[in-house]
């Protein structure tokens, strides 16, 4: 956790310092109060000096207003520092996640990364604000208080110095026993909601397979597990309050007893005794806050370590070379040479020994069954994963040697899932090319057969798109995401099964447009529907990660049995 603080609290050191000083002043002024109180008793009440009482009372109020003001100001500074820390840390995480490749990203998972960027940061940030006061004012009070008490009578200091270690022992005992239980409680709550969420989503299957009793057992187990832990945790926490109060109260008693002896020796006055009790109460009170740290630090440090995990995760793929792709001439634009790929830790490869080339102006189609590795193959081109063996080259340059930005600039990818971002249609198209003119945007929309519906929207290209693009149909989203790739005018287009939601007529029109406009580009198409790729220059048939055949439709149909099976299964449905 302190690693995190060291790095991201630095800009706020000034604020923190000011805050610490103010808290110090506040602590000292709190310590003056019992003194004045003692004066009131000793001088005022004992001598029946009412004007004096008023005078001291006014002093007392002034001091407490001063201490309040310090507290307010330090609150302001620490709020700014804490929130600033949260802001910076959040930004650092967000930036880091931006460098992640899918493999690192999936290691955490989107929802876990979201929690880490938001909730975990909030947790640490709030703890800073709370901790600051507790951490500073506890020791201040302790030192100041001890000095003040010693001024009255040093034997009383002894009483206090006995009580403080006892208090810490109590904190230690509680936090040592309770913290692990609280940690496991969080896990158990997660487990319970997981079990229950599964029950809800799977209700039909569960009832159909008659497994309701098992699910109920699972739920009860998880539920009881949680209840047991909570009970344990709360039982331990039950010690907290009574224990602290007991210590505090006994300190008062001992102070009276020891103080009485002092008074008897004429070392002290009665009013002093009351002041000392006040001191002791205040010291113990602020130490109780200090004790909060024992509860909060472990919690915050769990969050901090979750944050550090993200910040310390290095992207698996970094820029190694600084080669430019250069002008694309006729010839091999994209080539796979003996590419084999294993997902990290997998026992068999997803892709094995893939070799093929795609030339300028060529359309290469990739077909194959579910799980045959089509999408994986396509994910290797933008370097979402690095090949395990072999190499991929663009314009003769190994893609590992090209900076990622440069590499991706040469690609126009339309992914399987047409995902749009909130904003306008234009914003979404500009995603492909930031400085595109309206004309270019409209042109791209026209080619992707999206213009017809976009122009009829009330806002035209400035129409609103909701998060994920949920206010458009699947086919519309696909066309917009195609336009987003088109506006880039890259050397290589990759369509990963991106015509699936289009009806037959749009599909045909779109393909005709692409053929015309993209005649100088290289196109890689992953497709389910044979009809959409029958006219490709090259069809690559994948079967269980290996190439089962490469060629044109007619040749493949005759020589490749896998391809024939696919074609037959679809042509039959047309017949």
């Amino acid at each position, binding site marked *: 956790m302190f690693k995190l603080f060291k790095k991201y609290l630095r800009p706020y050191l000034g604020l923190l310092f000011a805050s610490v000083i103010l808290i110090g002043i506040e602590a000292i002024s709190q310590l003056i*109060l019992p003194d004045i109180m003692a004066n009131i*008793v000793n001088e005022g*009440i004992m001598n029946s000096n*009412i004007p004096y*009482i008023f005078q001291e009372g006014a002093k*007392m*109020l002034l001091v*407490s207003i001063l201490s309040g003001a310090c*507290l*307010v100001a330090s*609150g*302001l500074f620490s*709020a700014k520092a804490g*929130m600033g820390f949260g802001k910076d840390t959040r930004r650092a995480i*967000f930036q880091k996640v*931006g*460098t992640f490749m*899918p493999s690192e990203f*999936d290691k955490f998972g989107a*929802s876990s990364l*979201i929690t880490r960027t*938001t909730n975990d940061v909030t947790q640490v940030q709030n703890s800073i604000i709370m901790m600051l006061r507790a951490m500073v004012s506890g020791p201040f009070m302790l030192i100041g208080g001890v000095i003040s008490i010693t001024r009255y009578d040093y034997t009383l200091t002894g009483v206090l110095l006995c009580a403080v270690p006892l208090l810490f022992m109590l904190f230690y005992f509680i936090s040592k026993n309770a913290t692990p239980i*609280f940690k496991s*409680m969080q896990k*158990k709550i997660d487990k319970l909601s997981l079990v*229950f969420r*599964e029950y*809800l*989503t799977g209700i039909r299957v569960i009832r*159909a397979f008659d497994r309701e009793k098992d699910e109920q057992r699972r739920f009860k187990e998880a539920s009881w597990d949680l209840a047991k832990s909570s009970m344990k945790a709360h*039982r331990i*926490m*039950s010690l*907290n309050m*009574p*224990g602290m*109060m*007991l210590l505090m109260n006994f300190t*008062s*008693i001992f102070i*009276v007893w020891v103080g009485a002896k002092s*008074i008897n020796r004429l070392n002290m006055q009665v009013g002093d005794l*009351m002041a000392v009790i006040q001191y002791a109460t205040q010291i113990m*009170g602020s130490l109780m806050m200090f004790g909060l740290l024992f509860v909060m630090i472990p919690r915050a440090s769990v969050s901090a370590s979750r944050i550090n995990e993200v910040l310390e995760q290095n992207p698996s793929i970094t820029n190694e070379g600084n080669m430019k792709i250069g002008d694309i001439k006729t010839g091999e634009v994209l080539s796979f040479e003996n590419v084999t790929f294993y*997902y*990290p830790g997998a026992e068999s490869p997803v892709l094995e020994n893939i070799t093929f080339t795609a030339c300028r102006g060529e359309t290469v189609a990739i077909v194959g*069954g*579910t*799980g045959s590795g089509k999408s994986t193959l396509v994910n290797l081109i933008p370097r979402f994963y690095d090949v395990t063996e072999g190499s991929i080259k663009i314009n003769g340059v190994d893609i590992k040697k090209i900076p*990622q930005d440069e590499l991706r600039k040469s*690609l126009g990818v339309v*992914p399987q899932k047409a*995902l749009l971002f*909130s904003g306008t249609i234009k914003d979404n198209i500009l*995603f*492909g090319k*930031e400085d595109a003119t309206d004309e270019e945007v409209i042109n791209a929309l026209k080619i992707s057969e999206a213009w017809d519906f976009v122009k009829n929207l009330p806002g035209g290209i400035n129409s609103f798109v909701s998060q994920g693009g949920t206010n458009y149909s699947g086919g519309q989203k696909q066309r917009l995401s195609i336009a987003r790739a088109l506006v880039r005018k890259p050397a290589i287009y990759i369509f990963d099964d991106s015509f699936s939601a289009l009806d037959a007529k749009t599909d045909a029109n779109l393909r005709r447009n692409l053929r015309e406009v993209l005649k100088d580009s290289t196109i890689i198409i992953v497709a389910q*529907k044979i009809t959409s790729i029958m006219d490709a220059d090259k069809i690559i048939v994948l079967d269980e990660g290996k190439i089962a055949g490469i060629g044109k439709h007619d040749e493949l149909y005759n020589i490749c049995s896998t391809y024939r099976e*696919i074609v037959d299964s679809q042509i039959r*449905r047309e017949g």
Partner: protein
Amino acid sequence: MSNNMNRPPQGPPAGMPRRGPGGPPHMRIAEKPKDFKGSLKRLIGYLKPYGLKIFIVTVAAILSILFSIFSPLFLGRATNSIADSLSRNLPIDFPHLFRLLALTGTFYLLNAAFSYLQSYIMADVAQSFVYNLRCEVDEKLERVGLWFFDTNSHGDILSRVINDLDTVSMSIQMFLSQIITSAITLVGVLAIMLTLSPILTITVLITVPLTTYLTRFVAKRSQKLFKGQQKSLGELNGHIEEMYAGHKIVKLFSHEEKAIEDFCKLNEKLYDVGWKAQFLSGLMMPLTSIINNIGYVLVAVVGAFLSVTTGLTLGVIQAFLQYQRQFSQPIGQIANMTNIIQSTIAAAERVFMVLDEKEEEKDPEFPIEPNVVGNVCFSHVKFGYSPDKILIKDLNIDIKSGQMVAIVGPTGAGKTTLVNLLMRFYELDGGKITIDGVDIRHMRRRDLRRIFGMVLQDTWLFSGTIAQNIAYGKEHATMEEIVNAARMASADHFIRTLPEGYNTIIDEEASNISMGEKQLITIARAIMANPAILILDEATSSVDTRTEMLIQSGMKQLMKGRTSFVIAHRLSTIRDADLILVLNDGDIIETGTHEELLEKGGFYKKLYDSQFSA
């Protein structure tokens, strides 16, 4: 955080589910329950089994407070005895002082012991109460029909069972005893103060309205800011969610810089409102502490004045100084608690609503155990999801054992409804369904459902390994059987390419398994169950045609000698069917084989032309 100092640092512990971050819990925006009185009564009713324990808690609370109220009095007497001796110029009476202090100590000890006992038992009560209520809700859910799950959002049910019940338990744990404590403290302290010195009591009371007013004032303003903070936080989270969800696309289009720029803008906005909210809520403590000190001075001044004029003893003044603090605490707490009580009752209400849901009809007392051959008959079936909208008016189907029945029809024609009725997920409004002559209502539901094996449109898998998921279809399945089933469903290959093979854990974020692959696993699961009648509801919708063919060859093996219902959108399935039922608006309008129906040139032909020819 108005009373950080006073509240035991047990706060909402780390164990609380991750609710929206932001304001401290008591700053949460309070909701109003619908029927406060009724729901409160009911909640108390649920607490009845713990009556004895709660009684003990109450007694313990009263005792602990009594001891804590009286102890300052004795400590005050101790001081008095010192002052007395001094003013009379006598040596301090140490034995007497010792007795007084010992008595005070005993009181403090008893106070601590009872207060510990009270919260110890309360932990028991709160947790078992919630555990039992949770189980009751779970058992209830077993008895409610599917309509409940179909008409309520899962997130909503989930938050009732997890979060709402958690809120209730938290409130019981922390606040039930606090309410008792605060109330008794107030009354007790007030009574003692009055007996000691009415004038000083009034002095203490002067600051009370000031505290309550200030609490309200700050709370109101900071609520506003917290709402603003919640809103910016929401916007920022939305942006983060969106960018993380579209991570690949952001990278593909090199949009990282722009995303960070937008992020910074929102982040800045959150910071702006965030520190203000934090600051304002932080005002609470210094302000109450100033007011407390004002009270302190007032008591001192008035006390001193009284001691001069009426000879009020020093001990009484000292006792009052402590009472003054004891008195201001519960007032702040009670002000806080009204919000918490309201949202607790509202949470409890939402749970009660689940418990009040209508239940499924009970299983028959003397169930017939079917000996299934596989003849299925729908006769004069009438059904609607709501009584005023009858979907199926009069449905008659007669299916012989071993037949494969394809059900086709446009969306909303009632295809899935047939499955719902067959498995008795929903009850008929008229007519009956029989399996081998036995009315399904005369069987136990579990016996009925064991007859079927089904693969549904949405691929449900639970978190666990792939092997465990396939084994869901059959208890005590061997690894060999599992692999066999996977092979028959053509899932074996892709499973082996996964990092952990059959031991790969499927969870909500399993991103290395596609929809199609999940579908294959559910098919393997159905194969595993080896049922008498199969139901395939769009079972292969997200599998490509070639894989579908592979599955179908396996399925054909499985379907041999079994009655099967296939809700199909693909031609290949329909062609092989022994019987095609064409549904429209809930009624069967045509039946026959593929060829017969095509020849007929009716609705099927039209549907077929529009839907099945690419």
